[in-house]
Every structure is written in structure tokens, then in C-alpha cells.
């Protein structure tokens, strides 16, 4: 049971990440490979505020989200200069830089030592220490993330995002200052990533830089592409399937050394096959 709960919690965390990223990639067509850096910013901010200042989780969470949002604003400002594959490359660059900062700014992040002993969230004296209660918290987070994403997607803002994705210069002629929209959606995506980060930090109760590499960003890209671009339910589906898949492989009984590689091979093959036969992903409404 604990095991299934654990898998469910992880799926929730990744669902929140995916929902945020899908707004940026799926709706706005900005191929961001930087989501893990905002995930990390949220996780570290929460971890530090909880361990050093004993702050309440939900306050720490808000501050973490705010910090990620500020960074997203600055990074997004630079990224807004780029398009398509150059955007992907530049955002990847930022992920590397942020990761390197986690590793080297040791007086803040403790570098590779990581930050242990992060307390589980508490609300009005209720402690989310048990995994079941934490799962409920995570599900609430997914619900919030989903509602936020849905609100954005269904608003006029969301329609404008799609138009930016399709033809930004043309949209400008109809009175849109598209830069503001691109920044706003990037910030929202980052904020959701930070929310996921706060959950991750308090669930594992330990953070270190290794969780926020470019590989994580690439994995997240695979999640939303599999689930379907510009489709929110797709993001959740993608997160669930790519988190459950390796757990199932534990029971298939590959020889252990192959199993790990097999997982990688499957991710890769999945991406190739999707691009070949279904570039919008399973439930997608937008082809890259």
C-alpha cells in the first residue's frame, strides 16, 4: 500500500510540473528545456526556509513560488528573443547555469551535501507526516495546478497564447504586445514548477542538485509530449504513465542491469515513434 501511495505521490508531483510546462510548450509553442531549474528553485527555497527559519510550509511555499517567478521573469525576458530550436537551446543553457549554481553556491544550498531533515508540511496544527495525508495534499496541489492551467487556457489569454504559437508577428498587428504574454505564461509555468518543487522537497525531506539536471527537464518534455501538447488532461496522463512505467518494469523481471537501460531505451523509442506517427502526442491538440 505504502508503495502504491508513494508512486501516486510522485505521479502527482510530476503532473503539476507537466501542467506548468504544457502551458509554455503546448499552448505557447516555446520549447522550454528549463522547467527543472524552476522545480529546483521551488524545492531549495522551501527547503532553506523550512530548515533554517522554521517557517510554516505554506508561507515557505508562497515565497518559493515568488522566487521562482522572479527568476522566470528575468530568464523569460532573455529567452523571449529566441524562437523554436534556438529557444530550446538557450533554455537548456539556463538550466545548466542554474544547476551549476545549486552545486556551487554552497553557503546557500550546501552544494552537493544537499539539505536533509526538511520537515513535512503542517496546517493549523495538522501534520502531513503520513504518506496518505501527503498524497491528499499532493492531489490538492494537482487540482489547484489543473484549475489554474484550465483557467489560463480557457481565458482570452489562453487563446492569445495559441495565436502566438501559430503566428506571433501577425498577432501583434491585431494589437497584442506578445512579449507580455510570453513572459506571463513562462512565469505561471515556473510558479507551478516551484509548487511541485516544494512538494518534492517536503516529501523526500532531502534535496540536492542531482534532481534538477537537464535530464530532468528533458524527461518532463517527454512527459508532456507523450500525454499530448496543449491538452491538460494529457499532461496528467503523461505524468502518470511515465512514472508508473518504470515501477511496472520492476516486476517484469528483466535482469537488473538491463532493466535500467531498458527504461531509457523505452523513453527514447517512445519519443521517436511519437514524432513519426503522432507528433501531437496521445491526446494532443497541437503538432510541434
Amino acid at each position, binding site marked *: 500500500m505504502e508503495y502504491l501511495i508513494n508512486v501516486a505521490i510522485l505521479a502527482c508531483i510530476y503532473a503539476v510540473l507537466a501542467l506548468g510546462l504544457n502551458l509554455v510548450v503546448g499552448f505557447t509553442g516555446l520549447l522550454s528545456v528549463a522547467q527543472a531549474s524552476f522545480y529546483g528553485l521551488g524545492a531549495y527555497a522551501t527547503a532553506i526556509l523550512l530548515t533554517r527559519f522554521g517557517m510554516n510550509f505554506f508561507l515557505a511555499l508562497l515565497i518559493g513560488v515568488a522566487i521562482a517567478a522572479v527568476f522566470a521573469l528575468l530568464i523569460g525576458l532573455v529567452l523571449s528573443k529566441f524562437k523554436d530550436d534556438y529557444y530550446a537551446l538557450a533554455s537548456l543553457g539556463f538550466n545548466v547555469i542554474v544547476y551549476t549554481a545549486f552545486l556551487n553556491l554552497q553557503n546557500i544550498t550546501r552544494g552537493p551535501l544537499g539539505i536533509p531533515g526538511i520537515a513535512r508540511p503542517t496546517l493549523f496544527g495538522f501534520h502531513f507526516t503520513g504518506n496518505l495525508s501527503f498524497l491528499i495534499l499532493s492531489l490538492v496541489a494537482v487540482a489547484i495546478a489543473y484549475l489554474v492551467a484550465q483557467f489560463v487556457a480557457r*481565458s*482570452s489569454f489562453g487563446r492569445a497564447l495559441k*495565436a502566438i504559437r*501559430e503566428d506571433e508577428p501577425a498577432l501583434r498587428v491585431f494589437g497584442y504586445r506578445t512579449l507580455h504574454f510570453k513572459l*506571463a505564461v513562462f512565469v505561471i509555468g515556473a510558479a507551478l514548477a516551484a509548487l511541485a518543487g516544494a512538494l518534492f522537497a517536503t516529501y523526500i525531506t532531502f534535496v540536492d542538485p542531482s534532481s534538477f539536471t537537464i535530464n530532468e527537464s528533458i524527461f518532463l518534455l517527454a512527459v508532456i509530449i507523450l500525454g499530448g501538447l496543449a491538452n491538460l488532461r494529457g499532461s496528467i496522463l503523461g505524468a502518470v504513465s511515465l512514472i508508473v512505467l518504470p515501477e511496472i518494469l520492476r516486476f517484469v523481471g528483466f535482469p537488473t542491469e538491463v532493466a535500467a537501460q531498458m527504461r531509457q531505451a523505452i523513453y527514447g523509442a517512445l519519443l521517436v515513434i511519437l514524432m513519426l506517427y503522432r507528433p501531437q502526442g496521445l491526446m494532443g491538440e497541437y503538432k510541434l
Partner: protein
Amino acid sequence: MKALETKQLIKSFGGVHAVDHLSISVEKGTITGIIGPNGSGKSTLVNTLTGMHPIDGGEVVMNGVTLRSVNAPDMPAYGVTRTFQDVRLFEQMTVLDNVLVVLTEGNVWGALFERHTALHLKKAQEALTTVGLWEKRGALAANLSYGQRKLLEVARAVAIGAELYFFDEPFAGMFPEMIKVVVRVMEDLRTKGKTIMLIEHNMELIRKLCDRIIVMDTGELLAEGAPDSVLARRDVIEAYLGE
């Protein structure tokens, strides 16, 4: 009363003047044809006037305001809108969304907290009905026929409701009945006192629609005046036939 004026307008690409010290003026409530051989700078002129290319010299006067640089997002504020020669729809969006997006809030905060209203929908319906695309409102723009795509662009321009319309070769590749539709749209706009600048190669339509025409060649103003007189001029014909 002038709807638009350019003074010594310059747009150059890599040293070559695509629009070369061009000074024109357009009366309100008229349809002005812009003609000239391919590469004479007609579309470049429109792109420059709608802020898609930065101005490299000269001035533009739009509804009374004198500008040295034109910023695309300001177009609705100046009451200006356009269609594109190379059809530029929002391909992976529905026909309806293609129109709604130009109607709804363009400010980021406003847009975030706005859903499209019945009013938006009504305007969109009017625009789409005039070009006969309302039934297709659910289809993806990408799946329309070429002519329908052109019509959708017209609908988009009509829906936003401007004072000055640039139509960049709207009739190209349209069936006769579609042409009729667009012609009617333009005439309605004129009767409502709106101003239209029309780039077109079909001289028949030019004669039929335009009150005045402007002839461009290699970015310069070659001739202007009433269609019949201008189209009779030798140099104009030469410019077209490339002598």
C-alpha cells in the same frame, strides 16, 4: 480629410530601397488601389505602414498623428488593420478562434481574467456570416480551402472594425463568387466612410472598385490619379510589361 499620409518614407533592405522616399496621401472614405509590377514594393509599403518592418526614414501620418516609427501593436489604436498577401492565419486554431482572438482583450492582465463574451461572439458571427464561413466556425483554419482562408483573413479584418483597411491581394486565387463577396464587403466599408488601400493585380477589379490608384515601381511613386487616366499612361503600361 486625410486618412493616411506618408512623407519621404524609406524602407531599405541591405542598402536597397524597397520603399524609396515615397510621399502619398489617402482621402478618408475612399478605396485607393496600389498597383505596380512584382517587387515594386507594394507589400513592403503595407508591412512598413503596419509596423511589421521598422521605418528607415521619413514620416507617416495616421488619423492625425505624425509618426517616425510605427509599432505593430498600436494598429488598432490608430484604427488600422490589414490582410496578408501570404495568408497568415492561426493555422492550428478554429475559424471562430481566429476571429475571436482579434476581438478579445489585448492587454495581458485584461486577457487573463476575461472569457469571450456574447458580444464578441455576435461580432464574430456577423463577420464570419458576411464571408459565409459561420458554418465552418468549428473547423481548423489549416483545413480550409485556399479561397476560404483568404475569406477568413477578410473576416478577421472586418471583425476588428477599423477606420483604415489594407487589403494585400485579397482576390488572388479566389473563385468568382468569393470575389463578389469581398467586393461587397469593401463597398459596404466605403459607404460606412471607412478607408481602404487595396493591392491588386486584376485591373478589372481595380477599375471597378478604386476611386484613385497609386502606381509604384522600384519603391518609388510612378503615378497617381483616377484609374482610367493613370492606367492609360504609357510609362505605367511599360512598367507593367517591363517595356
